């Protein structure tokens, strides 16, 4: 998928590729020209990506080539042991988890499991989890607590799956239960919004001691399309809704909803997954180091204060 605002970037990139091909095939030295173009591309990417609107960032967050959890697992984590099932009804492929190792840290990793191919997305329901997914997550949180392992969660979902069976089996109960239990889980929780943070389905695994967001990730109480169709009575107004809802990492950092932005390479995570993963790794390790040094009572008290402080009102 080519995003409209990326056209020039893509043009320059293909020109670079052309020159590189030319240079190789004809043994020409075009390194100066290539370097020049690359610099230009970089500058352009930076400029474009700095100025993206909320709606544009949402497109980046939804980009089909954006790294998904499985990519982060292979790029950043070692020794991943996937643990399946909610011990009640099913193993939800839309939300997965298990033991994972990040440098010196052994953790329980839980995250939405978007796919990139049609096949993967069919199997993983586009990362939209059912109650059994949230209940599996809770089981793994409790296992982490029992084994005294920090928890890392990756958020990347359009939302909790709104289907008949999901309703029947208590999507509301499953999310509510997670929110309540996560508030008091006695190990550190670091959350990264890596792509789409879609409403209740996102926060259902998102009650972190620290909540990070990638530059172009979004996090929203409702999809801009849904908001527009309710408040503007027309889904076409989604770009305005996206702006109004303040769904970008930058806005949410200012609002105090998230704690830190993890910088994506200019041009977006889909242009350089490796570099993205490297930034994520550094950020996670930094925060794990801080959180793991805290005693359990301090950790829980600070978590309670953090969420107690969410919101702005008059009185």
């Amino acid at each position, binding site marked *: 998928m080519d995003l409209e605002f990326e056209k020039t970037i893509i043009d320059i990139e293909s020109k670079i590729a052309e020159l590189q091909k030319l240079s190789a095939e004809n043994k020409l030295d075009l390194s100066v020209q290539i370097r020049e173009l690359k610099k230009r591309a970089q500058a352009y990417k930076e400029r474009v990506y700095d100025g993206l609107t909320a709606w544009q960032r949402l497109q980046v967050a939804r980009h089909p080539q954006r790294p998904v959890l499985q990519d982060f697992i292979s790029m950043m984590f070692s020794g991943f042991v996937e643990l399946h099932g909610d011990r009640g009804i099913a193993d939800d492929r839309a939300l997965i988890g298990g033991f994972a190792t990040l440098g010196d840290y052994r953790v329980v990793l839980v995250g939405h499991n978007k796919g990139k191919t049609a096949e993967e997305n069919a199997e993983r329901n586009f990362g939209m989890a059912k109650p059994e997914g949230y209940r599996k997550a809770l089981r793994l949180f409790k296992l982490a607590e029992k084994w005294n392992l920090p928890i890392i969660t990756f958020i990347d979902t359009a939302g909790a799956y709104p289907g008949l069976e999901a309703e029947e089996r208590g999507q509301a109960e499953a999310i509510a239960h997670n929110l309540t239990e996560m508030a*008091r889980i006695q190990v550190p929780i670091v959350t990264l919004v890596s792509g789409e943070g879609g409403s209740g389905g996102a926060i259902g695994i998102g009650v972190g001691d620290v909540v990070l967001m990638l530059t172009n990730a979004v996090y929203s109480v409702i999809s801009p399309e849904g908001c527009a169709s309710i408040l503007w009575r027309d889904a076409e107004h989604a770009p305005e809704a996206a702006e109004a809802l303040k769904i970008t990492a930058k806005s949410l950092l200012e*609002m105090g909803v998230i704690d830190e932005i993890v910088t994506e390479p200019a041009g977006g995570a889909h242009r350089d997954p490796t570099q993205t993963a490297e930034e994520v790794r550094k950020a996670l390790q930094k925060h794990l180091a801080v959180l793991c040094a805290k005693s359990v009572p301090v950790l829980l008290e600070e978590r309670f204060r953090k969420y107690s402080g969410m919101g702005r009102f008059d*009185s």
Partner: protein
Amino acid sequence: MPWFSRSKDKMPAEKKEDIWVRCSACNAHVYKEEWFANLSVCPKCGYHGRLTCDQRLELLLDPGSFTELNASICPNDPLNFVDGKGRYAEKISATIEETGLRESVKTGYGKINAMPVAVAVMDFRFFGGSLGSGTGEKILRAANYAYDFDLPYIIVSASGGARMQEGMYSLMQMAKTCAGIARLNEKKLPYISVLTDPTAGGVSASYAMMGDVNMSEPGALIAFAGRRVIEQTIKQKLPKNFQTAEYLLEHGFLDLIVLRHEMKDRIHQILTYYRAGRTFRN
């Protein structure tokens, strides 16, 4: 016993005319006086109409026992939100004006048959009972009050879900309120959740579903996702009683469905069990 003192309270679910109330379930016309004397329950079909928070408090608490807390909290439009229909800030003022409320929940403490409790009662008239920052703040503070004074906590929900106009602050109220409930659990304090018509979205997916005992009234709509969204997603018709209190009971999410007339005594009865355990043995 006509127990509603403020007859100008708006009934959201009923069409009001001068002397009649038309039941939105069976379309019967009922004398207003009879309707209110029957606690806004249709005398013809048993339909439980919606209540304002004041009516609900009057229904649940001993007369004169309610003390409101944090009454001054109100929305402050943290996002400078403007939608197709105007500014949130203006709608706040208009809604406050119209309802006499300052947020979608009233909180405080009072007594149920002489038993002290902390309470939070939502009001659907205030932005559809949506979960604003102020709503979450008041619900958390009332939880903390219950925590500090060792009181049972009762929340009566009535909400369409999150308050979009406050963006992510609204979503965060789900975690914030549940954190309050989690602390009550640690202290083994009882929490009774009353899910009234309607309780949906971010409210059903947070504190409303987490009662030690979850109760509702006949016919109440209780949902996570909206019916239309689900139909669009799965492209099939939904069961007729889908997302009613009866459906939720059948599927294991409600402990009991209680007639409005019996609600207060039933909650009291349940709390006597808590009190017995509290005094019984170490």
